[in-house]
């Protein structure tokens, strides 16, 4: 199940080979991004629409930069701030944009499943899910795996693109925080486990999904023990602006029980990798000082977003089968 010529809607059920295909392709685009001239016009003449029905800065910029570096024309619509409001038919909006003659849609939507719905409305267009509700954020999962593999490859002095999934064997990944409402958690868990890592989650009972049956994870019973266990610690944004605050007694109690505070940093392995998909709530899920420690690779995640999204757009579009 490769993404070549296909939509990227979810990482759930994606094979190790398909994920490695993206990561390896992203490695070559990573090289391109180190050059002075960062363009490879493999998508010249193609039209990519970036449709963000929900506020986003980094994901939208990252996708649009990726598309432009591949030579595509980018039609950008920040729907969250345009006239399109909750209640407008998703089908109508997509049909309007599609009339411009699209090859691909990068879609961010507040509703789970929106990307799959859009893929049914415009079957001739490749759809890349840039985050749908609480369901999936596939490119975030891919760029997190890419970042981890790159760091481990540097440490081991191996070439990431020839290492396959070997660096994930036995790797211990801890994902902390609002698993229940997090599309990043769902995509990260799918990516890491497909690549062979062992995944543990830590969260207050209210922020775990109503069922974890079938999820390739174990639940930590002791957060601090889990911190000492982990090679990779992935923090999640506590989305208290969406009312998830009512799931915990207070933000300060969340921080004192599940925050990566300065006092907990000594528990971490010295070479542990600390990640966060952003935007961070400094002082809630992560202490401000901790976010700026060398173990923290948050800006590297942002930087890697571009080559990974270049790979996704390239694979999805460059080998698009003519319909």
């Amino acid at each position: 199940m490769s993404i070549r010529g296909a939509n990227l809607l979810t990482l759930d059920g994606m094979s190790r080979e398909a994920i490695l295909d993206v990561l390896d392709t992203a490695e070559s685009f990573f090289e391109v991004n180190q050059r002075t001239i960062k363009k490879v016009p493999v998508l010249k003449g193609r039209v990519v629409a970036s449709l963000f029905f929900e506020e986003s800065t980094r994901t939208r910029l990252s996708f649009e930069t990726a598309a432009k570096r591949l030579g595509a024309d980018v039609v950008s619509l920040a729907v969250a701030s345009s006239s399109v409001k909750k209640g407008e038919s998703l089908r109508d909006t997509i049909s309007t944009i599609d009339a411009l003659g699209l090859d691909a849609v990068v879609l961010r939507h507040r509703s789970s499943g929106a990307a799959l719905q859009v893929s049914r409305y415009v079957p001739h267009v490749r759809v890349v899910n840039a985050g749908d509700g609480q369901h999936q954020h596939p490119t975030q999962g891919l760029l997190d795996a890419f970042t981890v593999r790159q760091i481990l490859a540097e440490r081991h002095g191996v070439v990431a693109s020839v290492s396959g999934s070997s660096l994930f064997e036995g790797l211990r990944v801890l994902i902390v925080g609002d698993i229940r409402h997090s599309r990043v958690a769902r995509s990260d868990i799918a990516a890491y486990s497909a690549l062979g890592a062992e995944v543990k989650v830590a969260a207050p009972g209210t922020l775990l999904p109503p069922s974890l049956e079938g999820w390739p994870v174990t639940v930590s019973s002791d957060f601090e023990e889990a911190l000492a266990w982990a090679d990779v610690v992935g923090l999640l944004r506590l989305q208290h602006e969406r009312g998830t605050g009512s799931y915990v007694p207070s933000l300060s109690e969340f921080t004192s029980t599940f925050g990566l505070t300065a006092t907990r940093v000594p528990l971490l392995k010295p070479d542990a990798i600390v990640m966060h998909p952003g935007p961070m709530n400094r002082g809630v899920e992560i202490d401000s000082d901790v976010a700026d420690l060398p173990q923290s690779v948050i800006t590297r995640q942002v930087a890697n977003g571009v080559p990974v999204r270049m790979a996704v757009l390239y694979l999805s579009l460059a080998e698009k089968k003519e319909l």
Partner: protein
Amino acid sequence: MNLVIRGGTIVGPDTVFRADIRIESGVIVAVGEALSTANATIIDASGCWVGPAFVDIHTHLREPGREAAETIASGALAAAMGGFSAVVAMPNTEPALDNVPLVSYVLAQGAKTAIDVAVAGAITLGRKGESLAPLAELAALGVRLFTDDGTGVQNPLVMRRALEYAAPLGLRLAQHCEDEQLANGGVMNEGVLSAQLGLAGRSAVAEELMVQRDIALVRLTGGRVHFLHLSTATSLAMVTAARLEGLDVTCEVAPHHFVLSEEACRTFDPQFKVHPPLRPEADRAALHAALSTGAIDAVATDHAPHTPELKDLAFDEAPAGMLGLEHVAALTNEALGANPVAFFNLLSRGPARIAQLRASDARVGLSAHGGVIMVGEDANVVVFDPSQTWVGDRNALHSKATNTPYHGRPLVGRVRSTIVKGRLVVHEGVLQ
């Protein structure tokens, strides 16, 4: 118009037998072998079941307020095509059916259609769950069922008062069982699949708690409750136990809950969004198995038309509900297998008893439904071919809306003729 239904299998409450039927002036005038066809339109019923036309006690006709989705007239056409001679219009219109003028309006519009349209009144004013609607005044118009459907009556004290008030009037309260606080705005069944799909769940417990609460309130007050669209095995078990205890409770199941499971939500297609939600396969199978045991009084459609633009929203934003009138007979037939007695008990006799639309009930302006095929009965009769195969098609519906989850689904069994008050409304599968 004189009609002779020839060569069919007459389905009674317990048995079946071969006979012809002659209908004159809206009444069955003869039942027997080789009846005279003089001056009569002949309906060939060979290979078909002939029984009392169906009664739907859970139909959302949307008028007044949302006529773009359905009107009383269009809903009646869909009902006739589905084999129904009577439907009970649910009160969650805009505004709600909570007063005499509005209920009178719906009854008057219903009287212009080819079928009988009864009305379920709101239990509380505006369906707000706070103060009682004028139940006695509405009862005088012939309203026998009351419900705040769309939601249940959340406040247990209000429900208690409603039961106490309704009981001596001989009225039954129909409850949409879901505790909205516990359901918490969820959009599909809560469980393994909702967690995977990132969709907010509606817990089965939200339904079961209210079923349990209302059984306790019936025990306390001696009132009568009809449980709308039960969707879990546990809910049904509680109602069965309450019935054995001697409480006056009845229940219905909607076709989607014994045909579809929550797996359909994997597609994120809002056609599969409904409240209570589609449940896991184990619940679907339990309801399916219970259809033929007598534990379920009625199959009721919860026919819920919505305009295409609303069903084209994202799953969590789209309204809940799906069409049912034109497919329910086929779906029930398929689920039951060759069981004509249970088929007519679930689609006609059971619902007519709950809605108090039988010959022995005190009806106002409506004919008798859900009876037996015998001389002197009002001629509300359906001819159903249990073996005809066809395919669900949203473009071939008579409803104004097209939100059916059965588009493209092979169906077994089809209504050939619907006769309402002696009038041939559907003949050879075509609206007359």
